[in-house]
């Protein structure tokens, strides 16, 4: 029986074929072959035809010593860096994002400019924002040091991006600059979706701004914030560009992605690098599942 909805279903499946092919060939296949490569001794010379070696890229005890990704302190260091980076940058972005969103709500002549300005950091490539900040924070000629010296706070220019004490803070700030607008836009959309009465209600019963925000508005935009946190959090966990550009070799800021890529393309340890990236995928997967369960994001998917 070929009913109308059967026909529609068939058309739908045909229309989904290209997407499926692209996703299978360019996501699933490389994912699986990465998994496989992580179990091989792939190096530059035998990359196309490596030997299966089991789990030694992950962990191996050889003559009483532990080897492998899981035994590499630099790897765990990069895990720590990534988590520190993600937690702080996302927190900062959420705080800034909510503040921006509230400021975007102000109705006056500057409204258009605020909304326009907020989109600029979002549109700028990460690499460009990294370079811009690097330049502003440059030790000898950077405007930031110039201002601080002018204000008498420091005597001599400081190399903010390379100093181990400040480099993590710097990348968190650059990331926050670039992506709090994204959070702001989501929260702003959430706020706009609220009925006007909600925003007006507080004014009538005379609650002050902060109380009103905390007790009335915040609970209502919590879903939008949750979505922003999930998206930003998962994005932050795979951070690469910013850290690679600011200081690819520094172990103070090295992220998991930078670590894995370095193993592959600088040391040509493709098997080992694949193991590192598989670990990264696992860690992100676990965090993602927890996030998504917690925020009930999977429920958003239900139709109508």
């Amino acid at each position, binding site marked *: 029986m070929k009913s*109308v909805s059967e026909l529609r279903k068939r058309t739908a499946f045909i229309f989904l074929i290209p997407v499926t092919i692209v996703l299978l060939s360019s996501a699933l296949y490389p994912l699986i072959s990465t998994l496989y490569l992580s179990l091989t001794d792939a190096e530059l010379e035998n990359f196309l035809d490596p030997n299966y070696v089991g789990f030694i890229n992950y962990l191996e005890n050889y003559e009483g010593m532990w080897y492998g990704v899981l035994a590499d302190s630099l790897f765990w260091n990069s895990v720590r860096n990534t988590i520190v980076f993600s937690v702080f940058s996302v927190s900062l972005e959420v705080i800034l994002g909510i503040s921006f969103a509230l400021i975007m709500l102000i109705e006056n002549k500057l409204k258009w400019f605020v909304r326009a300005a907020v989109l600029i950091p979002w549109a700028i490539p990460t690499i460009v924002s990294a370079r811009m900040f690097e330049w502003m924070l440059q030790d000898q000629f950077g405007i930031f040091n110039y201002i601080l010296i002018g204000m008498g706070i420091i005597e001599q220019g400081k190399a903010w991006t390379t100093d181990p004490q400040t480099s993590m803070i710097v990348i968190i700030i650059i990331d926050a600059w670039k992506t709090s607008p994204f959070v702001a836009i989501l929260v702003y959309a959430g706020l706009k979706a609220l009925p006007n009465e909600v925003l007006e209600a507080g004014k009538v019963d005379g609650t002050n701004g902060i109380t009103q925000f905390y007790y009335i508005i915040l609970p209502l935009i919590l879903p939008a914030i949750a979505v922003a946190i999930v998206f930003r959090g998962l994005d932050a966990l795979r951070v690469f560009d910013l850290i690679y550009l600011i200081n690819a070799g520094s172990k103070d800021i090295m992220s998991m992605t930078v670590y894995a890529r370095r193993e592959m393309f600088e040391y040509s340890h493709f098997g080992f690098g694949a193991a590192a990236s598989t670990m990264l995928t696992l860690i992100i997967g676990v965090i993602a599942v927890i996030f998504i369960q917690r925020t009930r994001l999977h429920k958003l998917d239900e139709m109508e």
Partner: protein
Amino acid sequence: MADININTVNKYFGDVHVIKDVSLDIKSQSFTVLVGPSGCGKSTMLRMIAGLEDINSGTISIDGQVVNDLPPKQRNIAMVFQSYALYPHMTVFDNMAFGLKLEKRSKDEINERVNEAARILQIEDYLQRKPKQLSGGQRQRVAIGRAITRKPKVFLFDEPLSNLDAALRVQMRVELAKLHNELEATMIYVTHDQTEAMTLADDIVVLDTGIVSQKGSPLELYDKPNNMFVGGFIGSPKMNFISSKILSKSSDATEVDIMGMSKISIPKMSASSSEGDSVSLGIRPEHLVVNGDSDGSWESKVFVVEKLGDVTYLYLEKDGEPLVAETEGHSEIKVGDTVKVGFPAGRCQLFDSSGQAFK
């Protein structure tokens, strides 16, 4: 010729049984109105006839041909949606011509048919406008125009007038009636509006949670409802129901006892009933007699008076149950008055405890 025969049709949405063993015969060129409470499955019925929704079992035939597996375009139907569903990017002309173009009609024929439809619906001046440049009433005309250009044998209307204001609705209603006469097509029409149902329909079908409660001419349904549901659903304000008990049965009447009143004999019978059964006595507001002669009566306080000009509605009570009575437009009765309310036995309906009507 386009009879529509619906034979024991069932429809499920997931686990929800929405249409239950519905059988209906719709005569060619008749105007059938589907009514029923919200969510009872009216739109679903219409969409199944249109072919927009599959049916799980049973058959639907148009003109003797089973159309279960035919796509909408091969069923020779047209549908008019409540939300108009005009193509927003096309002009009125193109909206009406779209179906014809798909049928690969010649340019001349398309022009002729669209202009003809536009003339009938008086939208000739708007043919080059986009839908958003039209008022609600004009859009609705375009939606109807789009249906008639294709000269279908069956028209399906899903609450087409419900987005219009009252005056426009009356006007469009009259035009639809004219259109039905002119086009000689079968029309099936879903509405919530009692007046539309009563005035337009050759037959009214009352649906109750996926079951056909009754089908018949408007007056048949009004005068002889099959059950309490139809009795209560058709007519506005609603039929009043008073609980009572059967005292005795005779060959052509049933004698009932209503609290606080002398026994009364209603000329209705039901074989399955017996003495002592509880029954509901139904009487329409316009049949209640206020301060006049009747077969039984009681006294009630007046709680609310609604003066509509031609009639006045009095909100009364009977042993704590609310009740509405209709009386003449320029009634002197005021809130707080006590009136004598009575009813003529010949106008009463009786329903047994399962809601079935006595004949």
